[in-house]
Structures are given as C-alpha cells and as structure tokens.
C-alpha cells in the first residue's frame, strides 16, 4: 500500500509566483557547522605558508588546520566588529568598526598597522 504523504502534492505558494522579492535565491540550505570541512582553498593557504622564508615544509594537516583557523578568525572578527556597528545602530559593517574591534580586543593586536 503506497502511503501518500500529506501536503507533498500541494504546490508551494511562496516560491515561483513571481512575487515582489527581487532578492536572488539563497545558494544552498545551511548545513550544520563543520559539515563542510573547509571552505578556503588549501592551495591559497599553502601559498601563504610558503611565503614565510623560515618555513621549510608544511604537512597537509597543518595546512588544513590553518585554513579552518582562518575561517574561525574571520567569523570572530566579523562578529566583534558587528558589536561596534550595533552600538552605532547601523546595519552595515564599516571599516571603522573593524578598526575599533582591533583596538578593543587584545587578541587582534597583531593586526595593528598591517591593514593600511
């Protein structure tokens, strides 16, 4: 006996009606964090690592972890910068929010003077 799932045949009214929304469709459904192992291309990260004259060789695992760490870093600094923007009641992150975050957060001290 074939079971018919309720609502499976019903057409979705939200999508495809040519509505007012002009925003492009979202690229993909958000998966759980960590489901994709890394988004940054390992080749580019490897190029950065090799740019250091003192580094002889780097293992594949090391490159992978550096890529993942860079992603975490981007998330972290974006969130910290957003806190500053929120205080200014703005919805767009500006360069100055980033500068403020760098000054305010100790861990970002290494960035001072490097972004100019």
């Amino acid at each position: 006996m074939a079971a018919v799932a309720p609502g499976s045949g019903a057409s979705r009214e939200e999508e495809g009606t040519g509505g007012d929304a002009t925003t492009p469709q979202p690229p993909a459904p958000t998966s759980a964090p960590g489901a994709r192992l890394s988004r940054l291309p390992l080749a580019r990260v490897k190029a950065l690592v090799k740019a250091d004259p003192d580094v002889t060789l780097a293992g594949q695992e090391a490159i992978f972890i550096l890529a993942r760490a860079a992603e975490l870093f981007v998330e972290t600094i974006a969130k910290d910068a957003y806190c500053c923007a929120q205080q200014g009641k703005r919805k767009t992150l500006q360069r100055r929010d980033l500068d403020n975050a760098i000054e305010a957060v100790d861990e970002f001290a290494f960035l001072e003077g490097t972004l100019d």
Partner: protein
Amino acid sequence: MAERPEDLNLPNAVITRIIKEALPDGVNISKEARSAISRAASVFVLYATSCANNFAMKGKRKTLNASDVLSAMEEMEFQRFVTPLKEALEAYRREQKGKKEASEQKKKDRDKKTDSEEQDKSRDEDNDEDEERLEEEEQNEEEEVDN
C-alpha cells in the same frame, strides 16, 4: 617587483560568505571592511605560520604539523579555536582515511579479478549449495516451533 606576503589574498567570495553566515540576516558589509577582513585573514595565517614554525623548530622538525598549529593558536591567545580545530582535524583524518581505504580497496578488487577469476567461480558455486541446504533446515525448525 617584490610582492608583499599580505597581498596573497584569500578568495573574496569565500570571505564574504563566511562573514555573512557569521552575522545576523540583513546585516551588510562595506567593500572596504570586507577587503580589510580578507587582508586580516592573510596576516593571521602568516602570523600563525610563523608561531607554528617556532614550535616545529623547537621540536627539531623541519615540517610543520597539526600540533604545531594548535600550539600556535594557544600562543596567540586564540585558545577558543583549539577545541573546534581539534574536532575538525579528527573529521579530516577520518575523511582522508576513508579516501585511502577506498582507493586501496579498488586496487585490491582489480587485482583479484585479474588474477584468480576462474578459481573463484567454481569455489563459489560449491559454497552456495551448502549454504542453501543449511538455510532450509533452519527454516523447517522455525516453522515447527510456531505451530
């Protein structure tokens, strides 16, 4: 024509996606802020590499490994990254192991087929007959119990 290491940027599209997913819906980011974050990420990788390399040299190794990078994170006061990075490393290792095993298995299968194809055929037929007999006996027993 020396290129500064900071000029080795990570792809803009990926950086933008990471930022957007980290922030609540509806929040935008200016182009200048985005490119500054991208440059910051590059500087981060360079700094982490340098730190990790120190650990490798301390261990008298010439190759950077994963634990060097993890030690560098702690040194740079990014301890909060260590746990998620360890988890990611485990997943990565499992994936690599799976890939390796899959390719090794394929190779084995290929070798088996080419070497002893005929021998396996006759052996398999004998085994099948024995198994069928056993199964029939078991089924009979079960039926009696039910009745």
